[in-house]
């Protein structure tokens, strides 16, 4: 259903643009199947078209602009099911176009980037937040519109420091995503001169929808007093049951409570209300961080085509990584790419489900070149060499 809709929109746009198209950009979107473990709650089913819907909104934005310039845009989406071979699918897509937005794990993404067909391609990582992809495992043909997990934990660390919440404890889950989040959080706290007073691992196997009220107070009792409890639960398995059940009446942050996110329905400043309503009208649901990352990838390409009047990898990549590039991303500042690892610089929202609390970089966190570089791997920290 989602696929059909996508193609019909493409057809419509092609007709509209055919009259004067001088520059045509064809973009692929690849969604690799990921088998996630089950979670305790069934409250948050992931939309089937997550990411793709954002790319479609970006496609429409690009096409509207392109209409006035003789530029046309098309999008092909490939959605893999369980058991499908991501490399074969990526190779097929790369035969069609050199511009591919990818929703895949870090391992799959790297394997795709190393395909011979991808050697002269420009790939956008719109899903994986792993730090190594921006560090020693970086690839010159991958740009990242999804913020790294380090950008998000740095944002929270700035918040803790700003609010003078110095006394921190953490509960971490045992999934690899939880462990990566906990590692990033420890690193961020060290970076901003903070530390964890205590840590515990969540290894319960009871169904917490029934037992949380009994278990969590006892489980959190031996933390003693603290300012904030950090939860590393990136699959959103147990964290939701910790809020309001802690022994001490203290706020919760991290994967639950006060979260640092790429995008959230509660962002309405900086013209974001328009993007939210455009997205919602088209998709009848809220825009997620993954949708935003795919939208930003599409818009990055659109902005580069608009400004360069070209659609080849070399011209677009050079322009995107240059000082001339800037993307208006509804986050209150121009978004640009780090030319040392291909990461899209962007403010990070600190939000709870009902409101935006603050936006990092917070006031007072200064940087010699760009305050946005106080979030994530800065130039001297990154071991990425592919961009040199």
């Amino acid at each position, binding site marked *: 259903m989602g696929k059909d809709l996508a193609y019909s929109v493409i057809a419509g746009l092609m007709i509209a643009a055919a009259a004067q198209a001088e520059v045509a950009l064809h973009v692929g979107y690849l969604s690799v199947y990921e088998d996630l473990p089950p979670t305790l709650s069934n409250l948050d089913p992931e939309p089937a078209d997550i990411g793709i819907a954002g790319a479609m909104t970006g496609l429409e934005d690009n096409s*509207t602009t392109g209409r006035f310039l003789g530029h046309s845009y098309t999008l092909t989406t490939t959605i893999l099911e369980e058991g499908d071979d991501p490399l074969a699918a990526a190779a097929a897509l790369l035969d069609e176009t050199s511009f591919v937005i990818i929703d895949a794990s870090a391992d799959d993404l790297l394997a795709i980037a190393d395909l011979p067909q991808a050697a002269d391609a420009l790939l956008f990582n719109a899903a994986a937040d792993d730090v190594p992809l921006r560090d020693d495992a970086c690839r010159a043909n991958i740009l990242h519109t999804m913020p790294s997990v380090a950008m998000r934990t740095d944002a929270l660390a700035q918040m803790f420091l700003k609010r003078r919440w110095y006394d921190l404890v953490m509960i971490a889950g045992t999934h690899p995503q939880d462990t990566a989040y906990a590692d990033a959080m420890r690193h961020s706290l060290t970076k901003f001169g903070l530390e964890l007073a205590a840590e515990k691992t969540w290894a319960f196997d009871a169904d917490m929808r029934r037992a949380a009220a009994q278990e969590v107070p006892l489980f959190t009792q031996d933390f003693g007093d603290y300012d904030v409890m950090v939860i590393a639960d990136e699959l959103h398995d147990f964290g939701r049951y910790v809020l309001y059940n802690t022994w001490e009446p203290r706020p919760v942050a991290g994967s639950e409570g006060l979260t640092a996110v790429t995008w959230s329905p509660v962002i309405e400043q900086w013209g974001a209300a328009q993007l939210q309503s455009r997205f919602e009208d088209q998709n009848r649901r809220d825009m997620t961080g993954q949708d935003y990352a795919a939208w930003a990838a599409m818009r990055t390409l659109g902005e580069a085509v608009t400004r360069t009047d070209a659609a080849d990898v070399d011209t677009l990549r050079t322009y995107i990584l240059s000082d001339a590039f800037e993307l*208006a991303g509804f986050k209150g500042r121009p978004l640009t790419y780090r030319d040392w690892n291909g990461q899209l610089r962007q403010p990070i929202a600190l939000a709870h489900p009902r409101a935006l609390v603050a936006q990092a970089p917070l006031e007072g966190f200064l940087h010699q070149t*760009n305050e946005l570089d106080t979030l994530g791997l800065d130039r001297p920290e990154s071991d990425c060499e592919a961009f040199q």
Partner: protein
Amino acid sequence: MIRSVLILSCLVTSPAQAGEIWVTNEKDDTVSVISTETLEVIQTYPTGERPRGITFSKDYSRVYICASDSDAVQVMDPNTGEILHDLPSGEDPEQFVLHPNDRHLYIANEDDAITTVVDTETRKVIAQIDVGVEPEGMAVSPDGAIAITTSETTNMAHWIDTETQELFANTLVDSRPRHAEFVAGGTQLWVSSEIGGTITIFDVADQSEIGKISFEVRGVHPDRVQPVGFEFTLDEKTAFVALGPSNHIAVVNAESFEVEDYILVGRRVWHMDFNGDKSQLFTTNGVSGDVTVIDVASRTAIKSIKVGRFPWGAAYRPTE
């Protein structure tokens, strides 16, 4: 002592001409009416939802208000505050401009990528023009021949032939164009770009770019210096430019395109209007919820006036 000095300077710079500045309060669904004599709010009238753009008819007998979330342009009697009727406006009207013929309103429909032209007498839509994503800034040339829509996400100024109601040119500007004005007898078009941080100046005759103005506020990161609304002094030699979250107004030499001064005002300054003889400038400061009054001659802020939540647009009318 200080107060007496201020009053004196007000008396010197503002002659007897009485008037009002009308300010739309985006998050209060009201307009605040400020007396240009007493510099106080003298009336607050309810409007439709999310009022933004505001302008008066030529004889000041009507005030038009974009009630964005009511999907209407409201027509108000400024003497009573009564809403007389709504005009069809297309969805989500944000900004508009009244054609010199005093009849045609050119309205930017932010959610729909459309500019709607409405006849204020017959109350009918006479044209809808496809423009770029998120149309916002609106301007019309003094001779009425050209209307402009700027589109925030497409990053263009769209040039509309008001005879045919069709686009005849589209010119790229920097990111997120917000406001446009014709100057120098309609020979120049100025367009501000909020995220790009610039004002682009076009030669109207051939739509070529003839200049670009950048801003630099001491102690404020360039990313936070975001030009939005701007207005010109009576002699058109000086432009005042609102710089958004940098909380400053830039004073620009409109001949050399050089910035001469920066004036600290309230938080997130967006739009502005002058009093009758243009001796005072009133800026809307969204985040601080107030209006700053600037003495134009001395280029200093002389007063802050509390209005409603998130003041957005400002428009002047004489009252005598």
